[in-house]
């Protein structure tokens, strides 16, 4: 286990190096000058030149990248071109919101997804199965911005049960939970549908396995067959899906954050791209990549608990 963590840690360093290079070069090549965005519409060429000098944008590519790496190695991820705020600070303000949203949506997704998947598998080809798979298909197909807007109209504007947007209240208060409900459902629906489909197919496969038939033949109670023999083995692919989805959600979810006015990492990233705020883009992408790798590592470790036959040593 420790060897796995160390190995992944070393991989992560190289991965981040590669990603930072890719992001840096794509921002470098991309059209649109950061100096124009800082200087505004009235800036003259002299003004822009001064801004470029000031931001170090006139240096050759490798000098700029080298300087970035040197500072990053010391824990300094630079300052926003626009607001001059430190990148780490800007991310630190927004990440808790993204984390809250990701966890809440994952709870929605896992609860609904596994429940629906299980029912579908156990009542295979019944009306319950058809209903659940139909909803799963709809869940995957519905775009977030549409679902979000619809939920806002129904539950916030018309029924007034829940607030429209923001995540200002702490999550353990009633207001905090109320603020999380709609964005979590919006974001969790897609993942729930994926989990449901995966749980269904995986459970169907396991239910047909020989050892399940043996267990039934031995007279094990149906409840125990499902909960003890089937569920655990059926869950391995489901956990992979959960892990992948959670990794994506931690990267910030641009549309849901925008629709619900949530000050998260996804919005920071997309706004920074639009403003050509390179240090901010770089910082947020590296954070997202790191989280993705860490979540996947956790998933790999979880496998060993669910299926002791899996070993990384």
């Amino acid at each position: 286990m420790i060897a796995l963590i160390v190995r992944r840690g070393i991989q992560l360093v190289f991965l981040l190096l590669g990603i930072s290079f890719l992001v840096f070069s794509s921002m470098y090549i991309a059209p649109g000058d950061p100096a124009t965005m800082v200087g505004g519409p009235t800036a003259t060429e002299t003004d822009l030149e001064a801004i470029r000098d000031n931001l170090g944008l006139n240096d050759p590519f490798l000098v700029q990248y080298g300087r970035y790496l040197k500072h990053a190695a010391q824990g300094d991820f630079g300052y926003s071109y626009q607001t001059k705020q430190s990148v780490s600070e800007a991310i630190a303000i927004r990440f808790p919101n993204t984390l809250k949203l990701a966890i809440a949506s994952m709870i929605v997704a896992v609860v609904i997804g596994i429940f629906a998947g299980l029912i579908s598998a156990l009542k295979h080809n019944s009306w319950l199965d058809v209903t659940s798979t139909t909803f799963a298909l709809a869940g995957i197909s519905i775009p977030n911005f549409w679902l979000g807007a619809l939920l806002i109209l129904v539950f916030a504007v018309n029924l007034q049960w829940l607030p429209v947007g923001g995540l200002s209240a702490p999550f353990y208060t009633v207001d905090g939970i109320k603020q999380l409900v709609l964005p979590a459902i919006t974001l969790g629906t897609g993942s729930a549908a994926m989990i449901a489909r995966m749980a269904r197919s995986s459970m169907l496969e396991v239910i047909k396995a020989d050892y399940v038939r043996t267990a039934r033949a031995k007279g094990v109670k149906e409840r125990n067959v499902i909960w003890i023999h089937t569920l655990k083995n059926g869950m391995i692919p489901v956990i992979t899906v959960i892990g992948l989805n959670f990794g994506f959600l931690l990267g910030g979810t641009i549309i849901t954050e925008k629709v619900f006015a949530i000050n998260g990492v996804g919005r920071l990233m997309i706004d920074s791209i639009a403003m050509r705020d390179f240090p901010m883009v770089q910082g947020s992408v590296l954070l997202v990549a790191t989280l993705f790798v860490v979540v996947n590592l956790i998933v790999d470790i979880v496998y060993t608990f669910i299926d002791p036959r899996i070993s990384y040593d």
Partner: protein
Amino acid sequence: MKKTIWYSIVLIAMLVLAACSGESASAPKGSNESNGGGESNETFTYASTSDAVGLSPILMNDAVSANITEHVYEQLFTRNSETQEFDPLLAESYENPDEKTWVIKLKEGIKFHDGSPFNAEAVKYTFDKLRDPATAAPRASLLEPVDTITVVDEHTVEIKTKYPYGPFLAALSHTNAAIVSPTADKKQDLMKDPVGTGPYKFVSWTPGDKVELEANEDYWDGAPALKKIAFKVVPEISTAISMLQTGEVQFIDNLPTEQVKRLESMKNINIEKKDGTSVYYLAFNHSRERNQDADFRKAVSLAVDRDAFVSKLNGLGVRSDSVIGPQVFGFDEGADKAGTAYDVEAAKALVEKNGYGDEPIKLLTANRDNFILMAEIVQAQLTEAGFKVEIESLEWATFLDTARAGEYDMTFLSWSNVTADGSELLYPNFHSDNVGSSNRSQYSNPKFDELVVQSRTTIDQDKRLQILDQANHLMIEENVVLPMYHGIVTTAMDKNYTGLEVDPTGKWSLKNVTKK
């Protein structure tokens, strides 16, 4: 036993999480009380679609930041939106001993939010910093004509300009010419922690989320009735409208054309529409040979049915042929219909005669606001007249660079004109000095340049009006650009509040807003 351990773990986890989250619970709705007399302790929230960049008038240069700094700082003068004249604000009065000298008397007894006095030193400090090249202020050009600034006494400042400068009062009333507290500026970063003389004091800023201000109880013109105001970032306008409907925010502006009907059907809000100073125009790239042909520009102008386009804006656009809009200083009614009228048959004839349809036109557009709609309609109209038009739609940052570099045949540009002065529209956008920066249509005409310079260096405002009108007519008659429409300033506010002041430039003030 096992269960008890689980419960303990869950409980501890919850406590740890609770402790980590240091925010205090927000007050439940309805817990705040109104003080009566129009005063309100409830937070009055304005929703904007993007965050402020910074809160120092010297260093910032964007409309969202300006909405906030306008409440924290003040200028020496302010434009009266009704009379269109410049009234003293922090100034008491001014006089011009000669055309290049402005002696400005300041109001006495005003203090900055940090307690330091507002005086001639503060004015000199602010203006010197704004025009110092080392500051690299984005709007340093406002004070470009200034030669010297002298403190005459505690409350009098004398400004000498290099040449007579006509729009000087407009420049001094610009958001970026607001006076900052020198003591605070030396001590702290005003971009994050602003200190001015305005009706509101800075409280906090959570980047990406909101800026909070509180009433300045010692405000020289009487404390404002709203005690707490917040500028909240709500990136989606439709979400902001829903929040306005549910009372989560009280005020929004810049209502998009496609949402007007929804807003008008809402019962708990008041919508205000006011003719504005902004102009949206179809620009020819004058560095391209084809566009230098007056007949070509005329053919395009004949082919574009601007009335048809404006009718698609749900009432949010003013149709006028004039480049200088009806709300801008320099407009004369004679310019209103002086342009090339729509006549598709005449356009077709010109296109056919001169073979304008042979080579395609690259119509560049930014993919935001009404620009795409404008591009699509104009493309269809030009095609009808026989032109070949290809739209190239770019996102904002790329668009700005492409337009600056002149890599297009025709494009759509706009100018909000915060000073509401015609010279401040014509000089940056069309004077040859600014080709390669703000003159994106690359227009260069010595005769026009001369008129614009005159309009800037004449102090007599009546004379300025005539000169600007001449320059305006020159542009309209030669189809230098094709004004598509002039903007309308729009706001929507909770019906329980009243007293909002909206200016044609798009600025607004919550200073006199009260709760009913």
